[in-house]
């Protein structure tokens, strides 16, 4: 006598209320309620702006490109398919818009020398300063945010774009490659170099010197 088949115990992942709301909004905008579109993009405003800024490196141009990209997204909202994340779709439209503007402006010639460097050579870290895990509260400090932003702005375009899409926009390696029209192997190589270069730029400061005057260290010491 054969044993009874075990009953499958499938746990259905509960739907994220935010995702459900987003999908509902997408359906309504696609059905014609265009005025709801801003509610859809509002959670991603920073990412969209950051993606445009990563390509164009100019605040005014980045804002205009981000706005234009959102208008295009609104125009083509019916083409969005649920198999992709909405945020990824917005990011890809924004990066395409920004890349198109940069090509028109021929601004590649203004890129740092590092842009033309070969990317297959190994990268040797310049600094081995100990940089232990730091609390995310440091991002509340404006000067820290500015230093991080200027560090990434100092990267050559090909590293900056890959880093922004993968580590800031959280696109997958595949999505990043597709958006930029490069191979996944190139994405991985550029990502490695971008991360190591940023670490080199930030480790000495974030590892200690920028925190020389933390709040608890200010004023006269009680001892």
């Amino acid at each position, binding site marked *: 006598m054969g044993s009874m088949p075990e009953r499958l115990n499938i746990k259905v992942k509960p739907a994220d209320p935010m995702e459900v709301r987003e999908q509902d909004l997408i359906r309504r905008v696609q059905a014609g309620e265009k005025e709801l579109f801003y509610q859809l993009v509002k959670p991603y405003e920073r990412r969209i702006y950051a993606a445009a800024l990563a390509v164009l490196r100019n605040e005014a141009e980045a804002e205009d490109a981000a706005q234009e990209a959102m208008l295009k997204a609104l125009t083509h909202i019916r083409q969005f398919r649920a198999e992709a994340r909405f945020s990824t779709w917005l990011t890809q439209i924004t990066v395409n818009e920004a890349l198109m503007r940069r090509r028109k402006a021929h601004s590649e010639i203004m890129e740092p020398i590092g842009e033309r460097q070969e990317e297959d050579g*190994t990268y040797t*870290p310049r600094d081995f*300063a100990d940089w232990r895990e730091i609390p995310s509260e440091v991002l509340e400090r404006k000067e820290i945010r500015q230093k991080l932003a200027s560090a990434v702005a100092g990267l050559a375009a090909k590293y900056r774009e890959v*880093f922004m899409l993968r580590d800031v926009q959280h696109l997958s390696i595949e999505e990043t490659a597709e958006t930029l029209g490069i191979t996944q192997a190139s994405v991985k190589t550029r990502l490695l170099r971008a991360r190591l270069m940023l670490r080199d730029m930030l480790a000495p400061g974030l590892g200690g010197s920028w925190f020389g005057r933390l709040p608890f260290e200010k004023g006269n010491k009680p001892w």
Partner: protein
Amino acid sequence: MVVNCEHVWTEISNYLENEVDSATRAAMEAHFKECKHCTAVLDGTRNVVQLYGDDRLFELPAGFSQRLQRRLAQQSSSWLYGTARSFWMLAVAAVALLAGGVALGNSAVFKQPELRSEHAKPSHKIPASLMVAVSTEGKLFHVPNCKYLHRRDGESPELITASEAMKEGYTPCTRCLHQYLRSSVECPRVQPGYEFAFRMWDDNLLPPGF
């Protein structure tokens, strides 16, 4: 498997992405326990990924949201305005076409004249400038000397063009203008004795072989 520092640096990104095989991972972890430099690089790279992945890092320029909202609203309203304008333009165009169609339909160009005879047969391809004879009370138009042209005593036939005669509701005489009746198109014929009438007005209008 043993890895050196250079190997670790090339794989450190994949290590953080969890994209190295188990043997390499084990070898790298063993290396980190002994190499402070590579541990510092690992910690620092992880910090970079963590810090830049935070949404708070990039601040929006002041007024960015308001400007974006305004532009999206302008686009939506221009669509609405465009749709409404297109609708009204279509509606106006439809009314104009309808009115024009009615006016044209009522115009003399398209209006079929009321025939004087209920039994008359409409003419077919009759030359518009052909001079024909009509009488006041008659229903047909004829070649001028047709013997079937009825008129009151003392009344002389009026000579008008065929097109004028048709506008007034006259129809071709079934005898002298038989070839211009629709039923005789395939077999035109002229009553004997009336051939001269056609020659008299316009030789060019005669049917081929006449």
